[in-house]
């Protein structure tokens, strides 16, 4: 649902083409400082707050994971 927006955002930081399940952290596409940009992107674009308990790499590791995370937050399931 949010994949296009996520892809557009990631293109600003990752020049290689990546598939929706590719792990951007363990794949070395971004370093751990990128997490700040990612959290800000999610909060500012989707009008939600990333909480302490949300800081799990599984929520942010790929386009699909981020998409699922945003959808779950929007649905109030997190």
């Amino acid at each position: 649902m949010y994949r296009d927006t996520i892809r557009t955002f990631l293109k600003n930081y990752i020049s290689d083409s990546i598939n929706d399940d590719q792990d951007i952290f363990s794949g070395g596409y971004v370093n751990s400082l990128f997490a700040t940009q990612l959290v800000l992107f999610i909060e500012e674009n989707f009008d939600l707050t990333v909480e302490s308990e949300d800081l799990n790499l599984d929520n942010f590791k790929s386009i699909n994971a981020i998409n699922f995370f945003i959808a779950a937050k929007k649905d109030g399931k997190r």
Partner: protein
Amino acid sequence: MNMQEVQKFVAERIAPAANECDRTEQFPMDLVVELAQQGWLVALADESLGGRNLDLMNFGELFELLGRGCGSVRAMVMLQNMVASLLQRWGNEEQKQKWIPGIAGGQIIAAFALSEPDVGSDALNIKASAVRSANEIKLNGKKTWITLGQIAHLFIVFARLNGKHTAFLVPRESPGLEVFPISSMLGLRAAMLAELRFKDCRIPGENIIGGIGFGLAPVGTLALNIGRYSIAWGCLGMARVCLDIAMRHVLDRQQFGTALKNFQLVQQKIADMIVSINAARYLCEAAATVGSFESRRAMMHILQAKYFATTMVARVTSDAIQLCGALGCRNETLQRLFRDAKVMEIIEGTTQIHQIKIAEFAIHEYKRKGSF
């Protein structure tokens, strides 16, 4: 917050002790309770938590005034706000309740442990490591140049857990933690620096802030943004003290039959000092308008303010001594501010790291939008 009252407190309680604290390399511990009573140690927090619920402009002005008083006191207040804010933002409820009231009340002095003997600017390559078992975490490695390390009760320590950058809450009494004082620094000499050595240092398994792999960002970056913001504003206060001393001198001092103020080369220095202080102030005020320490805009404004204000204060302290001549070299306050100013260009990211980050941000924005 009534800034005139802050100014009065700084002038009467903080500034008079600053030179002696610098000489003796001792933090004025008797001030901690008073700083807590002012609500400054968690100044961004609600009053119910012992804070002042300050907006960013007032928060900056507080640090400008503290900068007028004593750099080490400003650093102490900054660190308490850094740690309390990152606990507030990224700590869980239990961590907030356990630590923030103590920081607010001055019973718990908190410190931030990122730098290592072999790692300064290159934070991604920290070597300190952590291993987690069922109910505890074991830390190994060294941290150095830790402000307040000699007196802190609680350290935010950055280490790699399974290779992932993670932030840990480490109480001073943790078994396996040794603290070694560092003395004879160039500036901020009352900041009680220390080296921390962790040898199978055991802490409870729940003492992680934020998630595993999120220690440097967003946890650490929030703290660094607050630190850089405080430093930028603090430089304004330091520079104003220098300007005041220099102005008094050039008005009074007679050479070649006239006051120094009448020489055009002296006027040039005065003009440059005033313009550069005001330029730094505008950047600080721009950073204060972003509303949060966490937005991309905020990071960019804070980087610019810290970069410019720290280079400005290094120049202004030097110029003030130049204008005062031998009397400037003998002036203990100018000496202290001159040495502290150099430190401001290094801590919380060197000038050069700031230049790189500002350029990277601008290039990134330009590629994305065609402007920045």
